[in-house]
């Protein structure tokens, strides 16, 4: 309830990437509409269906994303409000104004990881694994993870139909990746599959692609998946489409990069780095983490099969 007309919030942008700036400046004055609003995020969409994101400072940098310097809850914004960009400011109706004057540009890290210290990696992977196991349920990719990485099938009865089906599809994908077989059908089968605004299959793929992109050893697999994804129309939710669109260009969220880098660094991984990924969305982070773990497992298996 308001007892007077609200004055609106004047916020400062903290950071964003070049892609975000490209989009807002391209649509100077108008052309952007509100796609969806969540407590910590506003998604904007242009006439061509491209999505860009405004997030509060509890979230990390990401592709086509702007972070505001505030913990603001965006629940006072609705889809009907008008969005404008002019004079280095984004305004949403008379409710929100964000100044882009002093922001830092976040760039996607370009450096590839070509050397991994196997001793540290094994320890970090074990820490990641035990943390993940303690946090996962049988929802989303959780059942696949528990069944596949821990041979824990006691949850089979209590798992939902989608979780069971996801387990089958992800198991097939993993097996064929290790065996070096054609994975077109398996990749297709997980796009847009699962529960949530970003279906679990999409989140899994984002995690997997990020590892394959960043690790030199994963380069071939990355290119193979990208070539498959480019062959057909990606049929999933708008928010997932944005995520996948950037993943196939090697671009993903800051916290995902940090986790992959921490796993392969020559020091003990910090719990906070894992936690930051698991906290993405309501369940997306867990599915992304399973994708990351699976990608590493695939690389290790291929290496071992090749006598490495």
């Amino acid at each position: 309830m308001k007892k007077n007309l609200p004055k609106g919030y004047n916020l400062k942008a903290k950071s964003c990437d070049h892609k975000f700036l490209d989009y807002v400046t391209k649509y100077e004055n108008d052309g952007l509409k509100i796609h969806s609003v969540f407590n910590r995020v506003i998604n904007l969409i242009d006439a061509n269906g491209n999505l860009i994101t405004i997030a509060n400072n509890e979230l990390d940098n990401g592709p086509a994303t702007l972070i505001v310097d505030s913990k603001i809850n965006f629940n006072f914004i609705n889809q009907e409000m008008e969005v404008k960009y002019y004079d280095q400011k984004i305004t949403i109706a008379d409710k929100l104004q964000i100044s882009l004057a002093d922001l830092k540009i976040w760039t996607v890290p370009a450096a590839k990881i070509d050397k991994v210290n196997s001793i540290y990696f094994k320890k970090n992977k074990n820490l990641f694994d035990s943390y993940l196991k303690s946090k996962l349920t049988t929802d989303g990719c959780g059942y696949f993870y528990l069944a596949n990485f821990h041979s824990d099938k006691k949850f089979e009865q209590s798992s939902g139909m989608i979780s069971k089906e996801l387990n089958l599809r992800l198991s097939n994908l993993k097996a064929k990746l290790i065996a070096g077989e054609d994975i077109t059908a398996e990749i297709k089968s997980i796009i847009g599959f699962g529960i949530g605004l970003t279906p679990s299959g999409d989140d899994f793929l984002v995690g997997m692609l990020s590892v394959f992109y960043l690790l030199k050893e994963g380069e071939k697999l990355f290119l193979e998946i990208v070539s498959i994804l480019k062959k057909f129309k990606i049929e999933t939710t708008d928010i997932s489409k944005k995520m996948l669109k950037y993943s196939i260009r090697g671009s993903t969220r800051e916290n995902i990069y940090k986790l992959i880098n921490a796993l392969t660094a020559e020091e003990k991984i910090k719990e906070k780095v894992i936690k930051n990924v698991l906290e993405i969305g309501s369940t997306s982070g867990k599915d992304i983490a399973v994708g990351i773990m699976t990608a590493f497992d695939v690389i290790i298996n291929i290496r071992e099969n090749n006598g490495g």
Partner: protein
Amino acid sequence: MYSKTLIKKDSYYDSVTLMSLSNKILNVDGVEDAVVSMGTAMNKDLLNNIEMATEESEAAGENDLIIAIKAENEEKYETALEKVEDLLDNKDDKKGEKKEVKAKTINSALKDFPEANFAVISVPGQYAAREAKIALKNDLNVMLFSDNVSIEAENELKDLAVEKGLLMMGPDCGTAAINSKGLCFANKVKAGNISLIAASGTGLQEVMVQIDKNEGGVAQAIGTGGRDLKKEIGGKMMIQSIKALAADPETEVITLISKPPAEEVEAKILKVAAEIDKKFVICFLESDRDSDDEKIVFANTLKDAALKSVEAAGITVEKKTGIKENKELQAKIKEEKAKLNKKQKYLRGLFGGGTLCAEALYILRDKLEEIKSNIAKNEQEKLADINNYQGNVLLDMGEDEFTLGKPHPMIEPSLRNERILEEAKDPEVGVILLDFELGYGSHSDPAGASVKAIKEAKKIAADDNRELIFISYICGTESDYQNYSQQAKKLKEVGSILAENNVEAAEIAAEILAEEV
């Protein structure tokens, strides 16, 4: 076996909600399977494979939510579906505890209550205009509590209302009383021959209360929404309401309350008022208007608007002296003033009522140095940071910047109580000014809920060898269910000075803090 799907277009629910929903549907007796997912190709494929796809699910888009349920029979399916609706709407699902039938749409409400002629609408902004339009098309007068409605939609709704001869109160209309029945936030006042039309909520409440205190009575109290007198809307609902009240036999005096309207809108309203054979009292706050015209009288404060309305209604108003002439009050002011040390020279006004805060600012602007507020229009008076300030400050704590995700202080005072304690820690603060709104919609015991904070604040000051003075104004009547006298007793017991009206509260604060010459 009975299998059906429910599609929710462009629905964004987080996956935790959807998983919990899925599990709860599966727990419904007679449900064999349930899939809750977005309408992506792969998810639709799965529904096909398990023979739960329907024409509706096939037609669903990627951003639509599909709820597919397979049950023993139609009855079990319906039970599960009811559960879904309840869970998505966050409703109480305990059977047998619902005491009234709640219609899910305006059309179904009209089937149950065909004689209805009024709809109160409070839904999220994006749906509000659509629901209001449905109500107006069904010949219902509308009170639209929701905000976040675009000015274009407001114009369209008000045009439709004018065409149909209906009231379209709002958007963002928080107070009204129709045929003495209070709606949303309203005080219980005596019935009478004065009708009010206001663009502000607590402004309307204050005038109603002051009319009641001065032996007047209210026939109708109509809210127009805060934007009605802007150029873009052109005062459509104020004019429509004036015309409606012109035809109301109970109404003899029409009182208008608003911030100063756009010039051309004011001219239009005055023209309509001049053509109507009833007396008018017009209070365009802060406009400093005056007139000798007997038919149209201007008032500059809410208290004046009430007193002039009562006079226009033919009731003799007991002439009250100002605070300067009130010896008892002056003695109290002197006594309190003596308690303050030299450093304690500032006021902090913590308001729940937005218009009461604006009116206090109007009164105190010339009496206290460099007063600032979060609702000031004037840039010099605008408070830069609501959490970091010095000097004389008035806060409307009902503004979004305070209430985001928290209850409005009129409904639940804890937000303001926290601020009272913060202010008490500032050694430069001498006086804290508070308002308390009674009536429907407000907290059941606003004074009672604040006395602990007032006591603690006084203790914080005492521990620092200071005294802190509280001035309170209760916007309420003896008939309000919280009861004015009981509320006043609680505040007096903790040593707060009680003002008769909002203007007086501000004036007392200024007197206490005035520098000795």
